[in-house]
């Protein structure tokens, strides 16, 4: 094969690498593939990008066709999303304009003023956002903590019917959510859990448990039991060994599980829509139905979506160091 006998790599190699991967053609090919991957990623992220910039457009800009790429950014969308407004009398309007000149109005208040309105208080959305935080947060914590203890037991102890139990736990995920919504609705109504925070928390916890038990069991299986046995012999109880040894080592697994559970609970739409109305409604159903004076408030929806996206992105980013290890789902240990 005269193809690449004489030539070496064009770029230096710092990782262990096989000969055929060094070939200049192979290296060039890799770069092209990388480029294609970047282009595809951009295309896929385009809708998210559009939504993101829409959050900062004025009502008019949002609706314009063809879509405006260059525009004057404003926080009007956020203002519309987060506040309740009322039309004010001309007298009050003048008062407010006076206060504005003195610089005593907040940004949102000035934006409302431009539309001839006055802010009367936070919108229902803010309230729903708070529900989302409470419900998703608590259910995530609950499912991870309970899942952790269950996973440890499944991993370390000899239980009768263990395999059956594990399968049963997994089977709760096999039904599409829609199928159980009606029975759940009826059940919740009977129990008085309809439209209550507790109801949603319980539901999300249970739904996430199957996932977290399976995922965490995989991670804990990977931790050699010699670690705890050494601690047992040294005088620790199993619980202490669990906290001091297993937990630190399972950190990446716990982080990965937390993120996945959080994403599910945070973004959950179907159950939230059906099983809540006023008091416990979370953000996802409300973003979609945001109505305004002149119809659908696109800039508010975009602002809501963007704002909703941010917390999950922050959490994932904060835990990325652990996730990178955890995502390999306990691949071969070196």
């Amino acid at each position, binding site marked *: *094969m005269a193809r*690449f*006998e*004489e030539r*070496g790599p064009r770029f230096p190699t710092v990782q262990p690498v*096989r*000969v055929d*991967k060094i070939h200049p053609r192979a290296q060039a090919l890799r770069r092209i593939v990388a480029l294609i991957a970047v282009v595809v990623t951009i295309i896929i992220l385009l809708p998210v990008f559009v939504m993101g910039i829409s959050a900062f457009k004025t009502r008019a800009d949002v609706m314009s066709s063809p879509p405006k790429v260059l525009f004057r950014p404003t926080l009007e969308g956020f203002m519309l999303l987060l506040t309740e407004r009322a039309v004010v009398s001309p007298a009050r309007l003048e008062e407010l304009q006076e206060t504005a000149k003195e610089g005593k109005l907040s940004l949102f208040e000035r934006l409302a003023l431009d539309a001839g309105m006055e802010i009367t208080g936070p919108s229902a959305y803010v309230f729903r956002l708070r529900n989302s935080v409470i419900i998703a947060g608590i259910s995530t914590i609950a499912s991870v903590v309970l899942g952790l203890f269950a996973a440890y037991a499944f991993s370390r102890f000899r239980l009768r019917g263990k395999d059956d139990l594990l399968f049963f736990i997994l089977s709760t995920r096999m039904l599409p959510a829609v199928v159980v919504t009606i029975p759940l609705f009826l059940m919740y109504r009977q129990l008085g859990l309809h439209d209550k925070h507790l109801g949603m928390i319980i539901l999300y916890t249970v739904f996430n448990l199957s996932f977290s038990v399976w995922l965490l069991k995989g991670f804990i299986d990977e931790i050699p039991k010699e670690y705890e046995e050494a601690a047992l012999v040294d005088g620790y109880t199993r619980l202490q060994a669990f906290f001091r040894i297993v937990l630190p080592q399972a950190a990446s697994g716990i982080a990965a599980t937390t993120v996945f559970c959080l994403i599910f609970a945070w973004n959950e739409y179907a159950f939230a829509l059906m099983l809540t109305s006023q008091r416990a409604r979370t953000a996802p159903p409300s973003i979609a139905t945001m109505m305004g004076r002149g119809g659908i408030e696109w800039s508010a929806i975009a602002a809501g979506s963007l704002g909703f996206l941010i917390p999950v992105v922050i959490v994932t980013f904060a835990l990325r160091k652990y996730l990178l290890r955890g995502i390999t789902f306990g691949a071969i240990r070196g």
Partner: protein
Amino acid sequence: MATIQLSKVEKKFGDLHAVKPLDLTINDGEFVVLLGPSGCGKTTTLRMISGLEAVTGGRILLNGKEVTWKHPSERDMAFVFQFYALYSHLSVRQNIAFPLQAQGMKREAIDKRVNEVVDILRIRHLLRLRPGKLAGGDQQRVALARALVRRPAAFLMDEPLGALDAELRESMRAEIKNLHIAQHATTVYVTHDQIEAMAMGDRIVVMSKAEVQQVGTPVDVYYNPSNLFVARFIGSPGMNLVKGKFSGGAVRMAGNDRYEVPPAWQKPLADSLDGRDEVILGFRPEAARVTPDGSMAGEVYATDMHGGHTVLHVNICEGEIVHIRSDRQNTYPMGTPIRFAIDPEMVRFFNPRTEAAVRREAAR
């Protein structure tokens, strides 16, 4: 026919030197062992020869033709791994036939070759089984069969006996060597076990910290180690190395032991020490003999029973312990003072600064 030549072959990972520039010629039919502790670069060198690892410098030639950048499958070399790397979903027969199928050989030709090879390795009775059902030794035989069936120009083996029980290692060692003698195939073998290297190698390449320390036959590296590392590494236990000062034709060690340097060594020693007097005296455990009129003295600290013989741990001074090979007849309880003599033919000297051995013949 397979002569492998490595010319200034080097592997760097960024600034880290995994293998420093290395020159080596492996002759046709030779069994060459790359020997050294973990991390010395021996496995990386083997992988570069096979193509599983790309070199960052130097050239590799097979029978005079350059193969440095050739795909592993085009180098006509078979690789045997430490952990067998058998396909667990295929039967033994399919495992062995696999490389030939990959090359596109015809069914009849494949069957013929497989039959030959299973008889050589005596695994015919295992053909239908899956690797998961076999014991370690049998799995390794299947791996060897898979390599053998290709009739490659060279065999590359990466610690193939490492995963086996001590007992099995002995018998497989002889099997592999017998195989080599019968096939007369060029073999490059990597191990960290110097007993394996000595038993099997025609030549041994002793490596440490990415560098070649010495290349030689078992006799060479055993009787004439070129530096302290080789002296310590080869032999079980390794060579005894005692610090001392050379003056007045003798080496004085701590504890007032005095060793008369044999006449043949007087001049070479004086020359190589270059005015300094620090020297290291080396002797193998079997080169020392317990005798009442020996010139060295010490106290027995412990006795190791090794089956047919014993090894005495003798404290010669302030924590300096040497090993002396002894027979089972004489027993020395802990604390017994003894004297011993060193065979003048077997004594060696080393320069403590350069760590190199002092050569008895005058430097050319």
